[in-house]
């Protein structure tokens, strides 16, 4: 069914050859983050609270970037900024060279919590973005079915979110963001709440979809393994106020076989682990002093 995508869905752009992790993307900059900072006003305090600060990062078209950092360092905040749900206090975010001035259907978000509409069935949830895009009803239904199938949930069209397992809900949320065919996919720890097996199979599915659709993906995770496994590049953030500490290129000779058993995999993991160790300690120290 996934192979039918090309004929089935003309709206979906398929690259001629697979963009594979080994080659790395070399396309134009899709998301430009220029000196971005975000401060919040906190109730009962007149000192502004800086969540992220001085973030500079370019994500190229078709790239899969993973973002790791200690809890509370501002990863979700950064994603909200890219999504246009909040405006940066300093700096600028560009999509295709144009400054972001609000949310739009060119960017799809999968939230940390699933954020499905509980009164809509799985199918109707996926149709939501298509309704916003004013896709005609029949096509909407067809496309929603197609994407439900793509995430392996055909037969669950009429289920309400509460009738689905956590992993299934997350897959519906992913299908929903894919269905309206955004160029950019922003994912906030989408697999964090899942068991190891479900997570792995969803990781594979995500990579498969990404390879087929050439979307630009920004993927937040807490798992170092996940970051290395999925990302072409891994951006490591500092503790709050979050900045980009380092961006690592992830390259493997071959992605065939069990990537996690590759000696290179362990090296990347250890490197990121070392980078994060100090930041996690700093973050914990911070939380102790703040709370």
């Amino acid at each position, binding site marked *: 069914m996934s192979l039918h995508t090309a004929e089935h869905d003309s709206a979906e752009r398929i690259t001629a050859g697979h963009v594979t992790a080994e080659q790395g993307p070399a396309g134009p900059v899709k998301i430009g983050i220029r000196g971005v900072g975000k401060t919040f006003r906190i109730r009962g305090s007149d000192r502004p609270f800086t969540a992220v600060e001085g973030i500079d990062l370019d994500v190229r078209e078709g790239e899969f970037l993973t973002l790791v950092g200690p809890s509370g360092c501002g990863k979700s905040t950064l994603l909200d900024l890219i999504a246009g749900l909040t405006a940066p206090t300093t700096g600028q975010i560009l999509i295709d060279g144009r400054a972001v001035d609000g949310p739009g259907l060119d960017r799809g978000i999968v939230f940390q919590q699933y954020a499905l509409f509980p009164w809509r069935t799985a199918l109707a949830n996926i149709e939501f973005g298509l309704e916003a895009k004013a896709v005609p009803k029949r096509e909407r239904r067809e496309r929603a079915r197609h994407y439900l199938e793509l995430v392996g949930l055909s037969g669950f069209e009429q289920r309400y979110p509460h009738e689905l397992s956590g992993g299934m809900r997350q897959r519906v949320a992913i299908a929903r963001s894919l269905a309206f065919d955004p160029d950019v996919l922003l994912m906030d720890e989408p697999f964090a709440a899942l068991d190891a097996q479900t997570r792995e199979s969803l990781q594979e599915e995500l990579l498969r979809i990404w390879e087929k659709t050439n979307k630009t993906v920004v993927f937040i995770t807490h798992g170092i393994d996940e970051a290395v496994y999925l990302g072409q590049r891994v951006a490591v953030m500092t503790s709050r106020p979050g900045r980009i500490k380092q961006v690592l290129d992830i390259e493997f000779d071959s992605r065939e076989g069990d*990537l996690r058993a590759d000696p290179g995999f362990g090296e990347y993991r250890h490197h990121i682990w070392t980078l994060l160790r100090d930041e996690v300690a700093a973050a914990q120290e911070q939380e102790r002093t703040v709370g």
Partner: protein
Amino acid sequence: MADDTTLTVPHPAPDSAAPAPAAPARRKEPAQPERTAETAAVGPAGPPRGDVPTADDKATNFFRVAGKRRPPVAARLLAVVNRSLALVLLAGIWEALPRIGAVDAVFVPPLSEILAAWYDLLLSGQLLEHFQASLIRSLSGFGMAILLAIPLGLAIGWYRPVAEFLSPVLELFRNTSAVALLPVFILIFGLGETSKIVFVFYACAWPILLNTVSGVRTVEPLLIKSARSMGLGPVRLFQKVILPAAVPTIFTGIRLAGAYSILVLIFAEMVGAKAGLGYLIQDTQFNFRIPDMYAGIITISALGLLFNLLLLSVERRFSTWRTT
């Protein structure tokens, strides 16, 4: 903090994953094996799947089995018997106590006598007349409350400044007993139908209004964020997210109002009326027609029960998606 441990503890290797539980593979979907075959064909995308069933297969099977299960007929029958048992018991006690002289049969006649009186009232057409009078009044007030309070509540809840401006007034009225205001309504609207309908309307409007306001204001912010991220403007956000999310809360208000509509009407009819179930029980008590009085009371209970059941079934149709 729990999150931080995830950073330091590497994930278990894929082959150390626990074996899938022995969920029976009943009703396996036809699409499922096809998918696995294709994933294998796409191959290089990830590590080999091996012969361990994938977690989503597991999930699928689990839900197939769990979702289709129904309580067996015997169990359902037992539940019905169990629930009616208490009623039967109550009826039995009501019948027995006056007969054995434990209570004065003049003031509490046995149930069978009351039922006989009820039947006579029904045949004479009196019961229907009173029932109809009450029903028309309570439905008019209740219906008006729904028609006015829901749109008003939506508007108040949606425009935050309006909500904040009105909230002290709403609090004040909410805490003023409707019953205490009956004399005011009678003064203004007289003793006729209007005062009763307005009285019912007033009592019903509050729960509906307040629940609608809170329903609109307590929509899960993440859902709003999610809809906004898909480019929805304020109008469509209201129509596609706020409204459906508020429906269950609004219905809670409607059901409360349904109960109130009968409750307060009976009171109004007991104070001053020439027809209605409230008038019937008041009148029969004055004239010492005790069995008729009880027949009236039973009819009121039945009416309230019926009303609630009706509203419940409507509610269920509107919110099939709720877990409860």
